[in-house]
Structures are given as C-alpha cells and as structure tokens.
C-alpha cells in the first residue's frame, strides 16, 4: 500500500501529456505538439512535424528552375513573393545576369508589401491566440487592401508567382504607384488602432511581458532569425548584412531589442511594419524606367557549382542552397526555412510556463507550418 502511494507522488506519475494538434486552433495548421504538463505548467514540449511534408526538395530535383518558384510559393505562403525572389536571385547570381534597377526596385516594394501583409495576418492570429477575437478581423480587413494591389499587378491574391528568373512576369499595373501610396496613407492611420486594441491593453501586457524569454546567446545558438531573433538582440537582418535587390540604396533601421520576450517579439513586428512603410515610401516615387525582365535563354541551365542565397522573409532568414550539375534541373536544392529553425526553440523557451503561455509563445514565433515541413 505504501509502495503505491509513493509511486503516485513521483513526478513521473503526475505527468499529464496532452496532444495539441494536428488539428488545433492555436497551432495555425497541422503542427502537433506533445505537451507534458504538471497541473497547468508545461514541463516539456515535443514538436512533431511532417503532417504537411510534401517533399518539395525532392520535387525540385526533377523540374526546371522557373518551375521551382511555383513550389516555393507554397512553402511560406505568407511571404510567397520573397521566397520566389530568393530562388530568382540564386539563379541570376549563378548565371551572372545583370538585373536592371527597375526590377530591383519593384521587387523590393513588393517584398515589403508582402512583409506588411504577412505581419498583419500574424497580428490577427496572434490576437486570436490570446483570446482577443476582434484583432483577427481588424488584421484581415487591412490585409485585403494589400491583396487588392497584388491582384491588380500580379493577377493573384496570395500566391503571386510574380518573380521569375531574370525579372518579373509582367510590368506593374498603371495604378500600382497610386494605390500603394493610398494604402500607405491609409495604413499609417490604421496602425495606431492596432496598438489601441492590443498593444496598449493591460491584460496583453500581463500576458506577454517576461514570457518565453530568449537570451541573445540562445538565439544565436538556435539560429533564431527574423523579428523573433531581433527581439533578443540578434542582429540578423539579411537586408542589412547582405543587401540584395534595392536594399543597399535605401535607408532603414534594423529593429533591435534586447529583452527577447513575447512582448518584444510582438513589438518588433509592429515596428517592422512601420519600417516597411518607410522603405516603400522611399522607393515608390522613383521607380526607374526600363524593361521589366531580362531576356533569358529559353532553357535555363546553371553552371556546375554550389550557390547559396539568403533573403529576409517576414519570418526570418530564408536560405536557398542549390547544387547544380549543369543540367536544366538542379542536382540538389535545400531550403533553409526560417520557421523550421524557429520551431526548434519552442521547447527551450516554453518550459516552465503555463499552457496559455505556450500558445502565446507559439503565436509570437509566428510559425507557418508548410514552411517547416516543406
């Protein structure tokens, strides 16, 4: 009898394992988290992924380079445009094609618009994770405005496939500049509303401050990039460190914080929206004249070798690693996806917090599951 009682009181016995996902509202997709709890406190989180592993890397080995961009679209669908840009830049770098300024500027503007819409959606779903359902609708309402601009120019709302190796699919729509300016004007007024609804809320402060702290050392060691890494003070903005497209010509500041908690990951993204608007404003008025695409060979073949290109997506550093053997399709493609790496830190930072904090932390890392699984 005594034996039994002793057994029950050990920690092993008190562990309460719950399965969050693959279908769970807070995992934003089909992530499965196996959470061991002690009461409400999280003891460990084991992410189980692969519920949407589509084998994109293998698929790339049997298709041509222009076809790859249609798959990268579907990896991180919220920064589809930036993913495509990464592939295009790699191919252009390998072929040593000189890209006219017009293309560079348009790509930059589109990337920043993509970043804003991605952060809007993140804000919407983060608010929902914390239980503030109205945030969801505010975020999506403003996102539609950007999607309209995309639709006019690219012909599609989310998965734009606007980039192609050597330039862009089509020229920008005549209304493009006007509508982007209208949007910036509108969004500058609207963004403070976000602060009023969520960032200024005392419950939100209580829920997020000091939760899920990530030190700089750990951020570097775990390789956490993007706004999540920068909130910990990890200067990892590829736009600054290895400028691509038109980022070397413009002035913008890297958003850096040192605290590294959920609140600062949140603020970093809000500030990034402001910064993105600054970038767009610098470029929108002086898009240079010129062709919208460089004439490429009908069959693109990369010279033998290894190519690596980094870009900054809305969630962090996306690396495209292509090994070419000189054929029209790559020998090996590896995507270093930011979400995949960011997920790995979840167990480390969520340990010891409540289950509600786990949801908040997961939301603040801004995970997009198809990008993790590829």
């Amino acid at each position: 009898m005594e034996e039994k009682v002793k057994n029950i009181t050990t920690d092993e016995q008190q562990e309460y394992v719950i399965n969050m996902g693959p279908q769970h509202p807070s995992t934003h997709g089909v992530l499965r988290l196996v959470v061991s709890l002690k009461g409400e406190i999280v003891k460990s989180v084991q992410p189980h992924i692969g519920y949407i592993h589509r084998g994109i890397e293998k698929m790339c080995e049997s298709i041509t380079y222009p076809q790859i961009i249609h798959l990268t679209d579907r990896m991180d669908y919220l920064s589809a445009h930036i993913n495509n840009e990464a592939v295009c830049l790699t191919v252009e770098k390998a072929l040593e094609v000189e890209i006219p300024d017009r293309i560079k500027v348009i790509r930059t503007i589109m990337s920043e618009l993509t970043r804003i819409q991605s952060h809007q959606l993140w804000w919407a779903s983060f608010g929902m994770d914390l239980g503030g359902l109205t945030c969801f609708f505010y975020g999506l309402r403003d996102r539609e405005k950007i999607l309209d601009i995309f639709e006019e120019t690219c012909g599609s709302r989310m998965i734009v496939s606007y980039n192609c190796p050597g330039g862009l699919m089509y020229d920008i729509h005549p209304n493009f500049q006007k509508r982007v300016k209208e949007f910036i004007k509108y969004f500058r007024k609207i963004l403070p509303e976000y602060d009023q609804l969520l960032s200024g809320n005392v419950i939100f402060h209580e829920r997020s401050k000091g939760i899920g702290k990530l030190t700089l050392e750990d951020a570097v060691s775990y390789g956490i990039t993007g706004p999540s890494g920068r909130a910990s003070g990890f200067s990892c903005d590829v736009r600054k460190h290895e400028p691509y497209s038109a980022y070397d010509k413009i002035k913008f500041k890297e958003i850096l914080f040192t605290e590294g908690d959920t609140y600062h990951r949140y603020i970093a993204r809000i500030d990034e929206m402001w910064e993105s608007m600054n970038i767009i404003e610098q470029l929108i008025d002086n898009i240079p004249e010129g062709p919208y695409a460089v004439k490429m060979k009908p069959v693109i073949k990369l010279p033998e070798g290894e190519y690596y290109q980094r870009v900054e997506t809305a969630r962090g550093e996306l690396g495209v690693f292509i090994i070419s053997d000189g054929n029209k399709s790559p020998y090996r493609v590896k995507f270093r996806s930011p979400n995949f790496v960011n997920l790995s830190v979840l167990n480390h930072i969520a340990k010891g917090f409540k289950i509600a904090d786990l949801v908040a932390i997961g939301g603040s890392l801004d995970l997009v599951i198809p990008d993790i699984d590829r």
Partner: protein
Amino acid sequence: MKKEEFGDNESLELLNESGSNILLTTIDDVINWGRKNSLWPLTFATSCCGIEMMAAGAPRHDFARFGMEVYRASPRQADVIVVAGTIVNKMAPVLKRLYDQMSEPKYVVAMGACAISGGPFFLNSYCVVKGVEHVIPVDVYVPGCPPRPEALLYGMLQLQRKIETETMKSRKKRNATHDSK
C-alpha cells in the same frame, strides 16, 4: 448557378424516383432548412487555402451572413469540414479520424487543387495524397490554387443547395457508397 438548374442532381433524381409521402418530406424540409442555414465549419486548415478560408470569414467576404461564422474547434460540434490544403500520407489517418469524430450530419468541402487532386504536388511528390476523396467522401469541390474567398463562398452556397435536396434516405446512401469503396 440558378436554383432551377441545380435541380439536375443525383439526390433529387433519387427522390423523384422513389417518391415519398407528405409527412416525411415536410419534416425533411424543416430539418434541411435548419441544417443548410447553420453550417458550422471545423477550424481545420493545412496550408495556403486555410488563409483564404480565414479571409472568407473576414470583414470583406463575411461568412457570418450565412450563419457560418461559428467556427468550432471541436469536431463533435462541427457540421462541415473544409479541407483547406494539401493532405499528405501522414495526415490522412488524422483527417479520417477527424471526420469520424464529427457527428452526423457531416459534410466535406474539398478546397483547392491540393485537396481535389494533389494539385501542384501531383507529380514527383512521394507523400502527397492525390485528392482527399481517397480518404473521406467529398460533397463539394472548390477549385483554385488557392481558391478566392468568393469561390469558397460559392462552394458553400452550393453545399446549402445540396442539403436542401437531401432526404434521410439519400444521406444513408451517400455514406454507404463511400464506405464500400
């Protein structure tokens, strides 16, 4: 599509063939009116289509007008599962289980190319299920990659019309035919 055109459909033919008495049809009408006007979707999204599904619930498109805004996180309380996105082999048993956990009447909308046929991942991918039809019976297909929110709305309206023509018999038949596959 107009309502009259929609009358050309399998379950309606079945109804006309078998004929039915007044009492049952009236009850069917009432039940179907309830079911069609309150389709609560399950919060289930795998990839890009899920975002468009969210956009369909957002202010511009507003699912709520049709009484579909009550997204239930628990499959027990949901009426319709919108399969928004790719289903891979690892996910297929989970999807089947989710479907089994839902209580009758349950409907399935396959949203997007991936759910219909595997879409862009039809060729060369080693673990994508080529169409959700292989796992669970589908009522409405919404094509697109991803479909626009309007397309999803239209698909849901088609589902409403489908429910309208349903009878108790036809539901049984629908379930039986898929199980035998």
